[in-house]
């Protein structure tokens, strides 16, 4: 069902939405489900690189090793309180096989039934251009929205620079709906990511800044949108996000 730009506004997109029924995956460092600002985590899996076998293997340790995945989950929960959170841990103890582990975790998340996936990490290894391009296309065709934090590091960044994903940088907004769209891609959206209070390890909270905290704001908004309008495709989701941005030109203007 095509969506007309006319009539697409914040009210249409989000009013009354809670994220209920929408599965959201956080591909990061794990989630501390015991943190009161995160609440229930519906499932947790982890992947790691086995140095001897030189392949990706499941990892049975639970929880969050760094605090970052918990922070992202907390932001998503704040925006979409009733979504179902799933943790896919791909960051571990060393960097060997990082690209492979990341790709495996992302593929798992896409196949798991999640409608929206938060990626506050990326790879700059050109060897992985093809792999992540393919995965981004798979996600788009499967109706899964990938929300990626834009990398501040110069040079390539996969999959955040691909057109099939929603890429996000930090703006100075403070509310969950303070979304901006950038007319000059590949960075497409700005969302609150400066001095944001987030949950961290051991039940603590910290104030953080980074594009990686802007992405989960948008992930939360997409969960809200899909709970109200479950049939939207990733490209329609992107069009709605543009339409509800603070700097969008209203229809007929």
């Amino acid at each position: 069902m095509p969506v007309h730009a006319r009539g697409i506004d914040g009210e249409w997109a989000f009013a009354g939405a809670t994220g209920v029924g929408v599965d959201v995956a956080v591909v990061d460092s794990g989630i501390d489900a015991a943190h009161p600002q995160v609440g229930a985590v519906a499932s947790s899996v982890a992947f790691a690189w086995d140095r001897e076998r030189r392949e990706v293997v499941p990892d049975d340790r639970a929880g969050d090793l760094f605090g970052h995945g918990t922070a992202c989950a907390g932001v998503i929960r704040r925006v979409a309180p009733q979504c179902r959170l799933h943790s896919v841990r791909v960051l571990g103890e060393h960097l060997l096989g990082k690209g492979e582990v990341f790709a495996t975790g992302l593929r798992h998340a896409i196949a798991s039934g999640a409608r929206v996936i938060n990626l506050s990490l990326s790879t700059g290894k050109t060897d992985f251009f093809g792999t992540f391009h393919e995965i981004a296309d798979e996600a788009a065709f499967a109706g899964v929205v990938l929300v990626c934090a834009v990398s501040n590091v110069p040079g390539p960044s996969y999959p955040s620079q691909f057109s099939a994903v929603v890429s996000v940088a930090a703006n100075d907004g403070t509310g969950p709906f303070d979304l901006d769209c950038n007319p000059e891609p590949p960075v497409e959206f700005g969302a609150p990511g400066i001095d944001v209070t987030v949950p961290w390890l051991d039940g603590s909270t910290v104030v953080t800044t980074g594009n990686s905290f802007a992405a989960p704001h948008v992930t939360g908004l997409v969960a809200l949108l899909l709970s109200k309008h479950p049939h939207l495709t990733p490209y329609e989701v992107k069009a709605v996000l543009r339409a509800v941005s603070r700097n969008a030109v209203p229809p007929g203007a």
Partner: protein
Amino acid sequence: MTADALLAELARVADALGPAVEPPGTERLLSSLAETARRLFGARACSLALLSDDGSELVYTTASGQGADAVTGMRMPAGRGVAGWVVQSGQPVAVSDVRADPRFAPDVAEATGYVPQSIVAAPVVSEGDVLGVLSVLDRDAARPGADADLLLLQVFCDQAAIAVEGARAFGRVAQVLLGALSSAADADTDLAAALAGAARSGSAGRDERQLRDLAALFARLSRAEPDAQRLALDVVTDVLAYVERRGSRRPGG
């Protein structure tokens, strides 16, 4: 080729590498970078940690400010803390208001007795490979915008990456030097085998450092006064001959 002719040749090659890439220059440059960043951000401390070869540890190579002596040389698991997340995700992050929670960076805090209130950390990246992380502790809280400082810190990270890459290239050249020495030494001697072994294992962290130091010594030797040069060559030649004789006097050999 006689041993002293060979050494003289090696010294000429080492000298041709130029003093610009000599390791002490790299260390001074990195120290200056850390000091400059610390002052610019009005911070209490600034440190550079580089990943070990297997990517499992962060080794603090350079530090300026509070706790600098204690932190320099420290090795931390790369799977922990804010610095760990930065190298694993490749994303910069600023965390402030950590509420004096020592779990935030427990090992560093314990070793230095200094628990920061805030951290700005960005990845040091070269050609898509994360080499390490540059961290600024307790930047001047009166400075505006952590987001602007994140971008500014990235500039320092780019410079650090260039310096580290240069030093590593020097290490690889040292490997080539040793390789040449081993192939020029009389074949089938233990010395030849030992040199070849040293050249082969040169990619391991500590060995690479020794190789770099060795190459730097060759370079210094080539710039010494003629008398000092002759004396040094005599000493090296005699030591090599002694080692060779000892090596061949094995049981049954």
